[in-house]
């Protein structure tokens, strides 16, 4: 078998190569190639059971890979786990602490386990992280009396305790109210501004879209997409045109198809549709920045749109498309266009046998 050496350089924080975990007959993670760069806010997405937590556990050395390797900060986690962990702050699933200790005492225990000095030496740091997650007032309260949201906040405080370079957060907003979710999002942005690398596993796609610059999407243990969020969203951009008559709509469709055949290749998809009121629509998968250009082009052919709506792409659509069950593949042809390679520079992975492995209607 060929030698496996994950690609990395000074700016690569996490690099996995052919990372695989098999539990009995279940392949939880299959041949995973991930690359997280310094300063990334990296979204790690996938439905339940797709292998996200297993991957995080492998990165943290809680479980051993069946095959493949993970290099973090340029060190192989199979051999140099302790120095790697000393530079990571992590929440794995629901954070759990000692129920008989207070929030502050739990942080003292974790500080000592993290190699920090014991006693009062780190009181200031503990107060700082409690302040960040707004738990200072409840610091003396026993952990067992904490609400779900408070437990989650304490988990984040524990992850930030050593001021780590890499913060690994597995569903950090679980159990938080909308205000709490918003605050965590702000916190992630703030940490990113401080130069921290964030690895965020989440189901809340809006949250990921708001804070992450790169994402990886897993399905049934396979990596189905990895790339730049902006690039992905741009590929999901659409322009909706409504004309007053069906005849005009058909003419506009024919005109745009003709123009595309003539070399207007930034229109990747054309589709007739109707809006909620049953009015005919023309939907173009094209950059929204080109809306005015489209309008002007059609006007040259005496086709004047009654309405023009530029529609931003959403991570949710991309996610749902990429993780859709195989049976629905036929109905998702349009969105499959998103599975196109992003760019030469962008790391791109498409696994065989997954729904997005097929190209959409061109």
């Amino acid at each position, binding site marked *: 078998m060929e030698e496996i050496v994950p690609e990395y350089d000074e700016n690569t924080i996490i690099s996995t190569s052919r990372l695989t975990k098999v539990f009995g007959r279940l392949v939880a993670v299959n041949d995973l190639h991930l690359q997280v760069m310094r300063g990334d806010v990296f979204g790690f997405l996938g439905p339940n059971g797709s292998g996200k937590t297993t991957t995080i556990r492998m990165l943290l050395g809680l479980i051993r890979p069946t095959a493949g390797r993970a290099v973090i*900060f340029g060190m192989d986690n199979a051999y140099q786990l302790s120095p790697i962990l000393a530079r990571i702050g992590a929440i*794995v699933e629901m954070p759990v602490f000692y129920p008989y200790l207070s929030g502050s005492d739990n942080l003292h225990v974790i500080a000592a386990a993290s190699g920090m*000095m*014991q006693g009062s030496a780190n009181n200031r740091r503990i107060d700082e992280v409690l302040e960040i997650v707004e738990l200072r007032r409840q610091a003396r309260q026993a952990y067992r009396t904490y609400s779900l949201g408070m437990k989650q906040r304490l988990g984040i405080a524990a992850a930030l305790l050593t001021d780590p370079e890499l913060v690994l957060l597995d569903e950090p907003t679980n159990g938080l109210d909308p205000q709490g979710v918003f605050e965590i999002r702000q916190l992630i942005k703030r940490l990113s501004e401080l130069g921290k690398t964030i690895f965020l596993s989440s189901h809340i796609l809006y949250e990921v879209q708001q804070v992450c610059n790169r994402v990886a999407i897993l399905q049934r243990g396979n990596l189905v997409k990895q790339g730049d969020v902006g690039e992905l969203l741009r590929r999901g951009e659409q322009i909706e045109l409504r004309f007053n008559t069906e005849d005009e709509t058909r003419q506009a469709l024919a005109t745009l198809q003709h123009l595309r055949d003539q070399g207007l290749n930034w229109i990747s998809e054309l589709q007739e549709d109707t809006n909620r009121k049953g009015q005919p629509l023309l939907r173009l998968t094209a950059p929204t920045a080109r809306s005015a250009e489209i309008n002007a082009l059609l006007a040259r052919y005496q086709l004047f749109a009654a309405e023009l709506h530029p529609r931003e792409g959403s991570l949710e659509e991309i996610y749902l498309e990429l993780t859709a069950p195989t049976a629905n593949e036929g109905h998702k042809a349009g969105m499959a266009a998103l599975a196109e390679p992003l760019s030469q520079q962008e790391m791109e992975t498409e696994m065989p046998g997954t729904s997005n492995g097929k190209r959409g209607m061109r």
Partner: protein
Amino acid sequence: MNFVEPAMPEPRTSRPARSSSVMMGRQDFLSTVLRLTSTELYKIRRRAMSKVMGIIALATILFTYLFAPFISQDLVHLPLSVTVAVEVPRLLGIVLTIVLVGTIVGGEYGIGTIRLMLTRGPSRIQFLLGKIGAALACIMLGLLFMFLAGILLGQAVSLFINVPTNWHFFSLDWLGRVLLYLLSAMFGLCIYAMMALFLAILGRSSTAGVAGAMTWSLLEPVFGLLVSTVGERIHGPLGAFFVSIPDYLISNNVGVLLQNESIFLTHDQPATLSNLHALLVLALYLLVFFGLSWWLLERRDITN
């Protein structure tokens, strides 16, 4: 799936400075283990269970010395009170040690905090040694405290019932022998602690550690008696084999050490087995329990 280990190239990502408010301690192996031990002791101190155990231990000592004069007045004052001050805490200590160690190790799995601890930097062996360090400290301090409390209480009771102590026995040699006797009792408890630790890791729960070790310690003497009785009836090489089995059981070997160390007090016959035999057998148990615990902790995935 096979996977070829390549030699890793050297470049590592540079490490930015931490915030000035983060005060890191020494990171060498021993300092980390000592820090984990101290953290473990702090957690034990904060548990309600530890307070309950302390109360049980004190109450047991109190009742023992209040009722001992009814059996024999010699038992409450020195030098014979040493045997009571070692034996009672030792017997109670077996139960308390098993409960304590089974809980502090199994509890990490039960609550799920093992995940938290093993992602903070210490290696699994350091984590294990931290637990063992805390267990040893508890055994030594607990037994010493109960021993001293017993001796003092016994002397107080003997004064109260007006039985004078003749101090002619007291010498440095005598003190040394008492220390050895006490150390033998501590060593015996360490075996049970390691047994509970191993079973808690094996079963990944406090229940496995506590119930498993308790059952073992209760059934072992019964098993020993049973096989030796059967062996005596069978005769021949198989019978001799059966008869020799109890010589390799924990309780018997701990008993051998204690009996051989206490003869200066009780003037009984020494045990049929030597201290060396008992020490070797018990050391082997220690090694097996520790080795298996380490192996299990290192090998198994933390999935809870």
